[in-house]
């Protein structure tokens, strides 16, 4: 019985697979294009693999294999009609272009090129997606631009430029005759040269590592995340290898890849500015996750997210780029980021949090601290210690302050809710473009000094639900300065509010709760 059921299922699966199987058609053609010695061959092929080899020929000899995949017979016919070959330029610059009509979901076309070119030509390839682009044995220069797919360059004597986005680059030429630039965003870069080759080497990676097996003849230093140096004798061409998310490898031909060493671990000559950078240049995981950490927690990464549930002690965290998310810190908390949002929970000690770009959300800081972003919104739900908040652009919202607050933003609103039980707190709020809203309890006492600078005195106003303020207006350089001073509820701590191009409101209503997206 079991066998019969299994057979039925198998038959059904095969039938379903047959039904879903796309219609395919492969067509192969051969083409020849004239080109002068030292000419340039330009190939634009949006989809499909490309193999170009230099050989003893006098013209370009190409074999094109067109693969049309479609959902139906009709779509297959449409796909066949949808791809064309356009030959342009002249014998000095031969331009060959595969043109694919606007693709639909019903069919797709990929054209695979196998090309033999005279060795002394220059090759220029533009591609969007492929599994690979391979170019070998060229005496002239090579230029490749692609979006997806690996690029392999071998034995190219002339200058080489490869720009990719989502592919890896492999370059192998014993003695490069010209400058080499290999750059990608989401891939690795590997360059293999002869062990005795002389050249300048520039290498950079954001998230990955830079490794080499040519450490013997290597001299150089890090300048920030970028390494610059020479291999063997000074002079020679420059090989630039850069990727943002992948690794960079420089290998000596014939040497084992296992013998490579990270440049971070080599005793290199350092530039003074690079020392600090190198200390933090440890390549950590893309995301560091921890549950509860007991004692001091120190972590530095040049690129990566940090997510820790709880730190029972002090925390010192730095990321060059990434999200920092900490549930709770029982001690002092120092979080720095060169870019990325910060999301911090209950901070019992003094908090120092800064990012060069991104929003900051803090649940509470018991002993106050300093919170700064060069651009982004700051939300602090509760503070019971003196707190300074600075934003280079964006709103600052302090929902409940039971201590003094100093808030300053280049542009954006400043909203501060003083603890309803507080009789008085020192507040200093400034915005260079925006409104200031101060929510206090009905018995809050303060010496108020509120100023707005505006070009529209009718639109921007100062309003207080607590009496005691007297208002003056002055006109200075085409602007109206409205200033309200006085004591509310008999006076108290100094409250200085300064808004440009906005309103100032002092309200006795409770501040609406801040809605925070679930983490």
């Amino acid at each position: 019985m079991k066998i019969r059921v299994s057979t039925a299922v198998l038959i059904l699966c095969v039938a379903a697979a047959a039904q879903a199987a796309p219609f395919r058609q492969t067509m192969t053609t051969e083409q020849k294009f004239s080109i002068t010695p030292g000419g340039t061959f330009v190939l634009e092929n949006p989809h499909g693999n490309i193999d170009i080899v230099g050989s003893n020929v006098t013209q370009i000899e190409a074999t094109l294999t067109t693969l049309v995949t479609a959902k139906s017979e009709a779509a297959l016919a449409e796909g066949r009609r949808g791809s064309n070959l356009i030959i342009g330029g002249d014998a000095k610059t031969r331009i060959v272009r595969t043109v694919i009509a606007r693709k639909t979901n019903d069919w797709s076309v990929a054209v695979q090129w196998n090309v033999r070119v005279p060795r002394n030509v220059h090759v220029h390839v533009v591609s969007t997606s492929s599994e690979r682009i391979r170019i070998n044995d060229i005496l002239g220069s090579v230029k490749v631009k692609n979006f997806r797919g690996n690029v392999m360059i071998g034995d190219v004597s002339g200058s080489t430029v490869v720009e990719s986005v989502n592919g890896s680059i492999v370059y192998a030429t014993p003695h490069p005759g010209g400058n080499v630039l290999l750059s990608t965003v989401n891939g690795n870069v590997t360059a293999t040269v002869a062990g005795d080759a002389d050249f300048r080497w520039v290498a950079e990676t954001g998230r990955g590592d830079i490794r080499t097996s040519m450490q013997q003849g290597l001299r150089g230093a890090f300048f920030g995340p970028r390494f610059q140096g020479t291999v063997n004798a000074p002079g020679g061409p420059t090989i630039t290898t850069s990727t943002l998310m992948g690794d960079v490898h420089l290998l000596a031909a014939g040497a084992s890849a296992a013998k490579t060493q990270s440049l971070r671990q080599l005793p290199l000559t350092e530039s003074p500015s690079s020392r600090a950078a190198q200390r933090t240049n440890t390549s950590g995981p893309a995301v560091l996750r921890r549950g509860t950490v007991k004692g001091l927690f120190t972590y530095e990464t040049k690129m990566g997210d940090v997510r820790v549930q709880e730190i029972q002690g002090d925390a010192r965290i730095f990321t060059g780029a990434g999200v920092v998310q900490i549930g709770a810190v029982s001690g002092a908390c120092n979080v720095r980021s060169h870019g990325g949002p910060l999301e911090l929970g209950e901070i019992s000690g003094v908090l120092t949090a800064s990012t060069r770009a991104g929003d900051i959300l803090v649940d509470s800081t018991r002993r106050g601290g300093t919170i700064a972003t060069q651009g982004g919104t700051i939300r602090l739900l509760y503070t019971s210690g003196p707190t300074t908040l600075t934003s280079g652009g964006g709103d600052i919202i302090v929902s409940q302050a039971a201590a003094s607050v100093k808030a300053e933003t280049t542009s954006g609103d400043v909203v501060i809710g003083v603890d309803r039980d507080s009789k008085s707190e020192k507040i200093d709020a400034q915005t260079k473009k925006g409104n200031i809203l101060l929510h206090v309890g009905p018995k809050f006492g303060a010496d108020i000094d509120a100023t707005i600078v505006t070009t529209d005195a009718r639109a921007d106003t100062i309003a207080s639900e607590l009496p005691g303020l007297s208002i003056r207006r002055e006109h200075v350089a085409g602007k109206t300065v409205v200033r309200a001073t006085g004591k509310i509820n008999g006076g108290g701590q100094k409250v200085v509010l300064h808004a440009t191009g906005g309103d100032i409101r002092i309200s006795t209503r409770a501040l609406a709760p801040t809605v925070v997206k679930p983490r």
Partner: protein
Amino acid sequence: MSECSAMRESMPLLLTEALDPVRRETAHQHIESCVVCSEEWRAHKETWTLLEELPEVEVPARVKTAFLEKVGVAEPAVSNVIPFRGRPVFKWVAQAAAVVVLVGGAYFAGDRNADRIQPTGARIESVTPMQRVASGITPVSLAETRVLDAAALSPEIQGRPAVRNVTCVDCDGSDGQIALSFDVTSRWTVSGHPKDESMLRLSSYMLENEDVASTPSEALDSLRRMYSDPAHADPQIANALANVLRSDAHEGVRIDAVETLTHLPAAVSAQTRDALIEALRSDPNPAVRLKAVEALANMVRDGAVLEPTEVDVLRQKALQQDENPYVRVKVAETLGNMQP
């Protein structure tokens, strides 16, 4: 406090503009600086406005007479008028007879004098949809200046709109025409569906011209939130936000604009791609650039295909060494999720 009491007493006179200029100025200064009196004055004005809006009811004659008698200003009786005493039954019969005579006479006269039209087969040639006009009012547009013929202005003035800067453009009247020019402040409440053309245009204008429109940020936030809802999202709003992103001098405003664009459905915000790319390429504030990438990533996730030149900008941004590293990472992630 005694000053406040005196002020409150003089408020009715202030309302009716019966105070002399010096006292009027003093009163206004006091109201401006005193929260309690300011509140009182606002209440007075509201009441006054309400009174203005109430319909004027004719006082019944006998109430009026009784009142005047009570205060000793009784109207003199006219000696040659004999009061008519109505007789109810006769009155009803007379009224019924009058109605019968009027209706019968009208039918007879109309039937004899009417043109005779031969019946034809009626046919509707075309139908023009009637333009929706709220409450029978001709649509008006918000305008910086407006020139009106007096005939187009109702003689009725509702409430007490503040009229300022009055100038007599042509007041000699020799040609039988005069012209007055003035600024008037009046409160408008416009209601309609969020996707009504008028509501969209009005909201776009407010989002786009924050300085001119003097819209409080809470109101703008509410508008942005409402139009972030996929049910109400509209390309017109997206374009208004894109213009803010391109041109507003304040990074906080640009951040708000791009943040809203991030949450709009990709189909709606597709037209704003140029603005996002431009912001990513050259906005001086890293947070704006970061949010521009997030908005682009959102579009890509929803299946948008970027042009090769736009991909190039992203690629250059990812490899730009002096760019904020987190912006670069976000760009790389966006590129990684992209279908060529």
